[in-house]
């Protein structure tokens, strides 16, 4: 179905190559959108995937033009010779392309051309599809929701003015936090900036049909369920819940405060013993399909001219700017990272030179920082980026007598959550294990005993209909967990002139030791963070949402910024 729509689009050759590239990326990923659900499980999303399962084998093909001369004379004549030789090899295809393009142009003239959403052709380092982008302006490491959002916002604002390259080591997104998340969006935070980020996230999600539309491909549909979040609090947490509620109302979130009698009237299936009150989001809260958001952002970024490379950044090299004067510390040499070495899946290594680096690699940002020297060095460099992967489980259960359509994403006082999934009586549930019982992050295997010991008793107590549930499937994913204060880190590293960190947004855990974390909150902030990084790069500061408090300096100064939990 996608194939025919692409060949009939035939607008401009450039767009065609971009679209065919998109198609290749999409096909390999649409087939993988099962998100760990077993093949026997038929959620209504996966019904569409079945048609394209046959193309799963088609990996993202990347073949870059290869030249390795160092001597300038050889370089000059060798490049010319390579150019002539490669043209000679592709001459048949070149002439075929011209004739098909002429033919399809004639067809397109017969019917009116579709309206172009953007004013001019996508540009960038557009010398052809298989030339390695050895120089770019912005290098985004990590192509998940954060990285794609940064790439999209940068290209949307800068168009041809900045060349953006995104390096993603896992184009099927098998280990990324984005696609393995539950996809909730809520305004119920206790830090005002988080509330603002989510409100912008919701506004962005609402406008996706216009913003992320790519000519010739289907409009991304993120399947937003507006059922809201319901955060419950016991007697001890009542005060904190009330305070958070006041702040949320101040910031403009549309939430209601419900006492336990009101709760039991509203949700008859809910057992309100032990619950003093709850806050329900009436508007702009719910859950959506993070996969569609990711693919929508990625496709739009590619169509605007961003380059996606399948590879892993293995090392950095840079220089010390010894003519720059840094005031305030004894260490007076700012470093600048100039080159990243990328290892392609075939094993060969290539380098990219860039002006600005955006570290959006999620759970592996700490490791990326260590490659740049953050965490291994004297002085300021001795503090690593405190983001590491933590494994979390999500279980899909089948309960035909469950809460049904009228149920929000419920967060129990002890941190367990569940939400409805689809229309067939399936529910997703999960809980973060306490600090001392963190599972091993080497693999993504699921521990079923965790469900039986910790989650089932809680949700069965909260919703009596869940006593008769059956575990359908489960998957595991990584949180990009900020061990310092479980809030995101965004901003420049003080010692590097071009290392921007944008990671660590999953979690939002409380401060109490042995406490539990609230469900994955990172995906909802992806649009807001993308826009904030874009403002940092292009305007030199935050214009819309001021995220200065989330900078890396708080890690250096040891001043944590905690979300307050509700017990």
């Amino acid at each position, binding site marked *: 179905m996608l194939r025919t729509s692409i060949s009939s689009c035939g607008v401009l050759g450039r767009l065609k190559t971009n679209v065919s590239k998109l198609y290749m990326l999409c096909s390999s990923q649409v087939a993988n959108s099962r998100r760990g659900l077993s093949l026997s499980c038929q959620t209504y999303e996966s019904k569409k995937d079945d048609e394209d399962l046959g193309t799963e084998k088609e990996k993202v093909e990347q073949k870059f033009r290869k030249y390795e001369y160092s001597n300038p004379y050889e370089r000059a004549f060798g490049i010319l010779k390579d150019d002539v030789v490669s043209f000679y090899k592709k001459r048949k295809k070149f002439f075929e392309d011209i004739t098909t393009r002429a033919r399809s142009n004639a067809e397109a003239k017969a019917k009116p051309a579709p309206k172009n959403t953007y004013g001019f052709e996508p540009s960038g380092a557009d010398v052809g599809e298989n030339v390695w982008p050895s120089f770019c302006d912005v290098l985004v490491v990590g192509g998940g929701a954060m990285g794609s959002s940064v790439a999209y916002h940068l290209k949307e604002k*800068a168009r041809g*003015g*900045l060349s953006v390259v995104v390096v993603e080591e896992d184009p099927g997104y098998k280990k990324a936090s984005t696609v393995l998340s539950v996809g909730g969006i809520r305004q119920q935070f206790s830090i005002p900036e988080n509330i603002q980020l989510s409100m912008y996230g919701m506004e962005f999600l609402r406008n996706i049909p216009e913003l992320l539309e790519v000519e010739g491909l289907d409009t991304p549909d993120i399947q937003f369920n507006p059922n809201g979040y319901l955060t419950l609090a016991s007697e001890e947490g009542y005060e904190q819940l009330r305070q958070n509620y006041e702040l949320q109302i101040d910031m403009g979130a549309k939430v209601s405060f419900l006492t336990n009698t009101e709760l039991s009237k509203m949700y008859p299936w809910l057992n309100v013993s032990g619950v003093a009150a709850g806050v329900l989001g009436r508007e702009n809260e719910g859950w959506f399909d993070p996969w569609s958001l990711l693919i929508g952002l990625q496709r739009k970024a590619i169509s605007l001219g961003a380059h996606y490379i399948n590879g892993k950044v293995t090392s950095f090299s840079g220089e010390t700017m010894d003519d*720059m004067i840094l005031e305030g510390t004894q260490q007076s040499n700012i470093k600048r990272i100039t080159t990243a070495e990328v290892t392609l899946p075939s094993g060969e290594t290539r380098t990219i030179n860039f002006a600005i680096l955006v570290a959006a690699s999620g759970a592996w940002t700490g490791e990326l920082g260590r490659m740049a020297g953050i965490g291994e060095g004297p002085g300021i460099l001795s503090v690593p980026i405190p983001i590491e992967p933590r494994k979390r489980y999500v279980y899909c259960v089948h309960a035909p007598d469950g809460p049904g359509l009228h149920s929000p994403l419920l967060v129990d006082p002890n941190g367990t959550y569940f939400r409805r999934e689809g229309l067939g009586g399936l529910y997703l549930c999960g809980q973060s294990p306490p600090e001392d019982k963190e599972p091993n992050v080497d693999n993504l295997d699921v521990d079923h005993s965790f469900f039986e010991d910790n989650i089932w008793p809680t949700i069965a107590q909260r919703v009596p209909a869940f006593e008769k549930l059956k575990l359908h499937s489960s998957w595991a994913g990584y949180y990009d967990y900020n061990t310092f204060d479980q809030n995101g880190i965004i901003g420049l590293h003080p010692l590097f002139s071009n290392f921007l960190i944008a990671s660590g947004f999953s979690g939002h855990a409380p401060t109490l030791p042995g406490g539990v974390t609230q469900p994955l909150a990172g995906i909802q902030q992806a649009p807001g963070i993308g826009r904030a990084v874009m403002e940092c790069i292009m305007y*030199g500061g935050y214009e819309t949402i001021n995220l200065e408090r989330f900078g890396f300096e708080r890690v250096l100064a040891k001043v944590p910024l905690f979300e307050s939990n509700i017990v």
Partner: protein
Amino acid sequence: MLKFILPLILLMKFNKEWKVSQVGLFFLSFLISVNCYHNFFLFNSGFSLGMDYISYIMILLSVWIVSLILISSQKIKNLNNFSSSFISTNIFLLLFLMLTFSSMDYLMFYISFEASLIPTLILILGWGYQPERIQAGIYMLFYTLAFSLPLLVSLLIYYFLTGSLVISLGVPLEGENYLYKFWYMSTVLAFLVKLPMFMFHLWLPKAHVEAPIAGSMILAGVLLKLGGYGLIRVLIMFQEMNKSFCWFWVSLGIVGGVYISLMCMRQVDMKSLIAYSSVVHMSLVLCGIMIFSLWGLAGSVILMVGHGLCSSGLFCLANMVYERTGSRSLMVNKGLLAFMPSMGLWWFLLSVSNMASPPSLNLMGEIMLILTVLSWSKISILGISLLSFFSAAYTLYMYSLSQHGIFYNSLYSCCSGKVSEYLSLFLHWLPLNAMIMNSTLLMI
């Protein structure tokens, strides 16, 4: 003339020592500038090479620019990116340029004119950065080659017709039929592409942007002037024919100049903006040459020299920013007054020279050219006024966008620039603003 060319050839032996070559080139420019009190229309002649008023200033300009190239390209020396080949390529280029400007024979001029393309191509492809430089080099090579082959044919026909190709013995041709028109076009187009004129300017933004700093400086500084110089030499033969065509070139020059200066306001790449502004300046030069009056020729020579120094200096500045930030885009290179405060002086001085403010050579050249074009046709005041206005507009745009504002990394630091960079910019600016006092050096 050989007293300059032979030491230059000998300088190639010293390509392994950067400092020796640098000092040698400055010394060579000193030797040439000693002739500044020349009173003859032809001097330093011998072996069919000679200097007159215009070739003298062009040779001085080219040696000066090449020595400034060596100061600005320190990165090649520091990273040891084949610095000896770099120096020999540059000296080769300088040799061919000197031969071009001092040749007294049309054929010798043509051969060295074409030969100067090859070291430029090697500079762009060999030491350039981006993958797009392949396309840029091809554009430059083929644009110039395709249009200059008819020039060879026309020179040979001239030889067969008049018996000599010596420039000073140029016999003005008389004839009005279409064959003469065709002859005239094929001769003049070669230089119009090099100049570049508006319709044939596509190679210039590509080549200037993708070239390394050395390539950009030599292209903007000297190679564009080859077109103007060649036109002045060749129009001696075609004076009568030129009168029937000059309206076309002047109109294209003015209209094209206005259009390109509007394009300048849209650029996001610093080097691209400076490259397009070169086209605007050269279109005004074209108008002056084609009108072929005394003030027209004098004004165009002055503007050529002024533009060579100014654009070359601006490319140096853009390169300094690129070396520190890694990007040429104006979208991340903002607030440079906070990032490199001392360079703000040079940005300002060279920007105002670019928009023809006193006391720069550009001012004198533009005034003379404005008067020339105006005296030729009063209606051109519309185009000329727009040209001057937008010239100031895009220069202000470039200065304000790059210098004012907030630098994205305005955390706690600033950078001041190295002494060698200051020296190179000072040596760009000093002749630009001091030579207006003794501009008889440049005029007929």
